[in-house]
């Protein structure tokens, strides 16, 4: 443990927070199950999501070719909603 972490832990031990309902704690844990060390940021995903969705529509196994994007989509509900909406557009308009 580094000094910064130690100071943080001591500081936090003086305060107790009751802000997390049980469901929220379980929600955090569900996300932790899928967590990886390395991950793309929201803006990296935004930059590449059009390419990712086109690959998916073309059945080119986008998740395998761009695994960091897939992992981010599993972790980030906002990016995932945008991905699903873009996928709907491309699939339903027959574009690509």
């Amino acid at each position, binding site marked *: 443990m580094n000094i910064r972490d130690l100071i943080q832990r001591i500081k936090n*031990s003086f305060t107790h927070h009751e802000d997390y309902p049980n469901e929220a704690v379980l929600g955090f844990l569900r996300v932790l199950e899928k967590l990886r060390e390395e991950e793309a940021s929201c803006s990296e995903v935004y930059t590449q999501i059009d390419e990712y969705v086109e690959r998916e529509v073309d059945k080119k196994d986008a998740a395998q070719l761009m695994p960091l994007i897939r992992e981010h989509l599993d972790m980030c509900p906002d990016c995932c909603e945008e991905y699903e*909406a873009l996928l709907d*557009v*491309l699939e*339903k308009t027959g574009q690509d």
Partner: protein
Amino acid sequence: MPTRTNEAWITDLASPGPAREIALEELRAVIQKGLPYALSRWLSPDEPQFNSLVEEVTQETLLRVLDQLNTFEGRSQFTTWVHKIAVRIALTELRRKRWRDSSLDELTENEDVPPPPGLLADLQAGPETSAERADMLARVRRIIDEELTERQRQALILLGVQDMPMEDAARKLKTNRNALYKLLHDARLRLKRRLSIEDITPNEVLTLFEQK
């Protein structure tokens, strides 16, 4: 509808003149063809705000496309890139509205609302399981308290407890969506490492809550 190459879109949109005006009209049609599908999980075309939202999003998308034209890298069809921009604009607006509405609902809802499923399971559990769950939750809460910085805690509360959209939470914390995601990712990594040190796996806790 005529189809253009990516290069033709860029060339026509790059400078003012009749070619740009024609391209903008075509692009408007492309956006408006796609938007109902993008919105289909959120809003039915029968709802009164549908048409005005489509119009606002189309206008804003066209402005943003012109503004960001030089950032198009050709990774996809130009029109897919444009749809991506329209989706971001539309969903940002809809999330904000959803969150505003749900906050209002919380203020006005009565106390007879049933507890969430996880808590229902707890009411049905035997005393031993119930005590074990309470003990485990207390351990996890202590770990959260000890491990996270104040800012990481604020982010978790805004997103995980209050369900605030990322864009709004980022604004509230005076940061951007990207930095907020990084803050959250670091917080989650810290929690995961600490849980591992304490020999707790997320799956173990979740399983405990799935038992009757």
